[in-house]
């Protein structure tokens, strides 16, 4: 027998209580890490945006379009290397309306801008050989040469069990009618924060079929020659259209993405507070359990002191006991959160990157478990160690 085995034996004294306490810490740390995972994922969705790209949208709101004619003028702004554009489509699966995934109508130079974030992993060969515009991945030849072709994310492609060349129907909500798209390529997100559940199709197809060729775009993406010039370019672009019918609002792509996250309002704050509240509640539960466990053994501590155990040893024994329960439960809860949350592969229908619980979060969870152990064991350990032997022995005699 050693002092550690004495701690373990004492933990087994009331197995049900020990297991329930460890389980409560496990659940608390699971929730804490899962909620932190939500916050981390929201933050990751901001990180996908680049500081080297600007997004120009209608100054009133993103739901108001901008004229296509702005493209050429935007290209003349010093510091702008290339300009592309896109529209949000917002269709639904005609068979299952709840089955949502993001669809974007994009200019032909849109995907090349994101060449560092995505790679084409499956593609059809073009039926008729045609030239691919400069800068476009040759793997997209079939996509480029077909009016209703689309490129889809690998995760969406697998989830829907599509095949290359398959025709996919989509019910338009903003642009009514049933639209059909032919899957010609599949992309894989090299940047894990990038949405892999999106469909990209030709802006021209949308313009001709859905907008009567009016030439309106949802937003422009401006690739900069030098990210350091972002501020100057932003001001220059917005100044160009300051007094026009469709004034612009330009910001970095990262700020643009952060705008979406800000739509969640105080939800991230609430999530953080709930996580801490759960941890605090469990701290009280664990402290109460340890108080009960040590109070029951008051006389035993008196006996141990009579045998020669000093106050410090008694203090450490109780503290380690509390730490073992909370560390065991907490570490398991934090690891379980990582396994379950990441195993679920949840990504809010493609609106967020896949949920992740970072190792740093797991470590924070384990550290919190240790702190809970120390905090919950501190008072009972102090009481057990400081009680006079004669008072402790009087508990039974």
């Amino acid at each position, binding site marked *: *027998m*050693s*002092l550690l085995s*004495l701690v373990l*034996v*004492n933990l*087994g*004294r009331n197995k049900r209580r020990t297991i329930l306490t460890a389980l409560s810490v496990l659940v608390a740390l699971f929730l804490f890490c899962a909620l932190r995972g939500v916050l981390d994922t929201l933050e990751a969705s901001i990180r996908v945006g680049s500081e080297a790209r600007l997004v120009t949208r209608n100054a009133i709101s993103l739901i108001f379009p901008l004229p296509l004619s702005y493209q050429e003028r935007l290209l003349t702004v010093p510091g702008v290397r290339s300009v592309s554009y896109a529209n949000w489509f917002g269709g639904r699966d005609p068979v299952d309306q709840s089955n949502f995934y993001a669809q974007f109508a994009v200019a032909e130079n849109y995907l090349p801008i994101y060449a560092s974030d995505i790679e084409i992993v499956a593609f059809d060969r073009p039926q008729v050989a045609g030239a691919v515009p400069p800068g476009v991945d040759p793997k997209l030849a079939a996509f480029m040469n077909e009016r209703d072709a689309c490129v889809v994310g690998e995760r969406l492609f697998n989830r829907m069990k599509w095949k290359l060349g398959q025709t996919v129907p989509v019910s338009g909500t903003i642009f009514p009618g049933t639209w059909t798209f032919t899957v010609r390529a599949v992309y894989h997100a090299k940047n894990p924060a990038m949405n892999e559940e999106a469909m990209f199709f030709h802006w021209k197809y949308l313009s001709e079929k859905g907008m009567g060729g009016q030439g309106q775009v949802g937003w422009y993406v401006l690739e900069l020659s030098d990210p350091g010039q972002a501020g100057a370019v932003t001001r220059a672009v917005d100044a160009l259209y300051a007094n026009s019918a469709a004034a612009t609002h330009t910001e970095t792509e990262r700020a643009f993405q952060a705008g979406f996250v800000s739509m969640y309002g105080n939800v991230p704050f609430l999530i953080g507070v709930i996580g801490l509240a759960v941890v605090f509640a469990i701290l009280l539960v664990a402290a109460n359990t340890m108080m009960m466990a040590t109070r029951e053994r008051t*006389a*035993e501590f008196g*006996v*141990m*002191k*009579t*045998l*020669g*155990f*000093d*106050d*410090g*040893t008694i203090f450490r024994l109780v503290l380690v006991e509390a730490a073992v329960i909370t560390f065991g439960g907490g570490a398991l809860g934090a690891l379980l959160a990582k396994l379950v949350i990441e195993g679920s592969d949840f990504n809010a229908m493609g609106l967020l990157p896949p949920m992740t619980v970072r190792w740093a979060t797991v470590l924070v969870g384990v550290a919190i478990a240790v702190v809970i152990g120390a905090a919950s064991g501190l008072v009972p350990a102090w009481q057990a160690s400081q009680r*006079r*032997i*004669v008072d402790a*022995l009087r508990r*039974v*005699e």
Partner: protein
Amino acid sequence: MALVEVKNVRKTYRREAEELTVLDGLSLEIAEGDFVALMGPSGSGKTTLLNLIGGVDQPSSGDVVVGGTNLTGLRGKQLARWRARNIGYIFQLYNLIPVLTALQNVELPLLLVKMSGKERRDRARHALDIVGLEDRLKHFPRQLSGGQEQRVAIARAVVSDPTVLLADEPTGDLDRKAGADILTLLDRLNKEFKKTIVMVTHDPTAAERAHRRLHLDKGVLSNGPS
């Protein structure tokens, strides 16, 4: 020179505003190898005196010197170490740790001494052998009779080879037969292993086993009928 010297000891307790004097200027000497029985009515201060000799409690005034060490000068960790080395304590209600086996209960005081696990187990086994429980090593206290539990408690008290054994009503919770066996065991520890024993008891039959019987009444000590 006496092994235990209690010099003009006074012990008072404060209960709310009232001060209770339990021992009042008590002096006592116990020679090495002696077997002393402390008798007296309830509340006379027998257990208090035992606690002072064992360094479990401190006198309000006066000195308690055991084996040349003045206990009033020791505090906290020093006193705990001294107890571990010099005192074996036997309680009326045995006070074994219920989740530990007989062997583990006896090993408990040895956790404070630097020695290997094997050495600890061997010494604990030997102590249980002395008290006649070599076949009950893996039994938990709830699986033992009262007499056997008290034997385990005695094994725990002697395992670290202390100078003094303090027994507080060691037969108080036992039937006549088991009580007699425990007294025989204490007698053997005194005679064969030269342990100095101070035993608190209400039982005159138990007291007869001691070499010396002392009566304590209202904090004052007197020699009983020999």
